């Protein structure tokens, strides 16, 4: 049975994956190489946030593809949503209250 693809999803998982990630303020910019493209975007977002030394206890992050101006789906493999060399931004999932 064929898997339904979300809009904009690639028809194959790019693995391994290289990308650049920044935080929302642009203070930190990190280059990642050889990341498992089958990992969910949410999972990778948390790992990237951790390497950026952003708070990760009880805090969640998502990823945004900066060049294509769209949020990545948390529960989909990262390698199905971005190309090699993508520029990603780590977006805090939080609100001012």
């Amino acid at each position, binding site marked *: 049975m064929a898997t339904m693809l979300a809009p904009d999803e690639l028809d194959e998982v790019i693995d391994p994956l290289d990308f*650049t*990630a920044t*935080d*929302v*303020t*642009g*203070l*930190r*910019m*990190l*280059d*990642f*190489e*050889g*990341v498992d493209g089958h990992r969910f975007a949410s999972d*990778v977002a948390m*790992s*990237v946030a*951790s*390497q*950026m*030394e*952003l*708070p*990760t*206890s009880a*805090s969640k*992050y*998502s990823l*945004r593809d*900066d060049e294509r*101006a*769209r*949020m990545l789906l948390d529960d989909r493999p990262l390698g199905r949503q971005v190309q090699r060399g993508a520029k990603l*931004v780590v*977006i*805090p999932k*939080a*609100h*001012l*209250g």
Partner: protein
Amino acid sequence: MKPMITDRGEELTVGILAGDEESQRVLALEPVGLDDLALAREQALLDGLRAGVLPSDFTAVSTQLLAGDTGGKDRLKNFRLELSHGSAVYRRQFPIAALARVARRAEANLRAQQILTDGMEASYFVTTRPAQSMDACNDVPCAKVRSEPLVLEEAPLDDFLGHSEVLRGPALRSKDPDPSAPTEGDLHVFIPEDVWDTGHELARRGDEKESAGVWTGRLMRDTRSPEVFLHIDECLIADHAAEEKYSVEFSGDTWGDLRTRLEQRRRRLNRPHERIVGSVHGHNFSPEPDANGRMTCESCHLLPICSRTTAAASQDDFRWHQMVFAGQPWAILVVYGWNARDEEEVRCYGLRDAQMMQRTVRILQT
């Protein structure tokens, strides 16, 4: 959670006691994690930068946790962070109160488990214990850091001080100073009057819903001392945000738009070092009346400052600030609201003693 290990190879730990500090009944031992010390580290980095000891490239600074002085029963009276960069070393001591949030977290867990019940008091102490466990290694390959070093522009601090006035808050209409607002010791933050007014408009733009903006600015170093200060250049609208009565959530498009406009400003104004340095938002609602339907309290006419106000940062505000501005101890948080007398108020917050505390800003006359 990755525990913080001291120079003696022990975990820093907060213990929760049933009753007061003399109690012998330890209910829980909560490890102090990396996140728990984030504000303390940022405070030490900022202080070290302002003292001219540490560089502005914080990624090049290594951190060592040192257990502090003991006050009997292996309980610590304080703890220290030692930051080093090459041969430069900066040490900062913190009281155990800087770990109060760890104690609150542990106490909340105990209450959720009914180990602490209603009416039971709890207190806390800080100690060290042999390291219990280490988290598994991060499962994304280590990244190469490609961040540009933070640049401090040189400017004479005295000129800024001479052309600015302290905004103490909280009441905008009242001239009464707020006794809780600090005036000394904090990093100076300068905001041109027209930019401050823009921030006010953006905070109130949502009418009955919360709305927000972000401050952009540049870090400066005094030409006659190592002192560092912040100059705010602009307040940008937080567009495409989910604005509700009691919250405002930035979307991916909000951040995309803000980053694009900042980049445009950098190019157009030739300010390559301008960056996002804080936020402003409005609690655009009034305090709830009391059980008798009264807005103001009995002694309202006697008190210079009304304490019933919505111009106060919430725990969500502090958490958002920490997620966005981690590693940026100069960042400010500004909140507008209304007090029970229907007066508009504003409060500014920044890092002090490893906690987000109310602070002043200086308004530059334009």
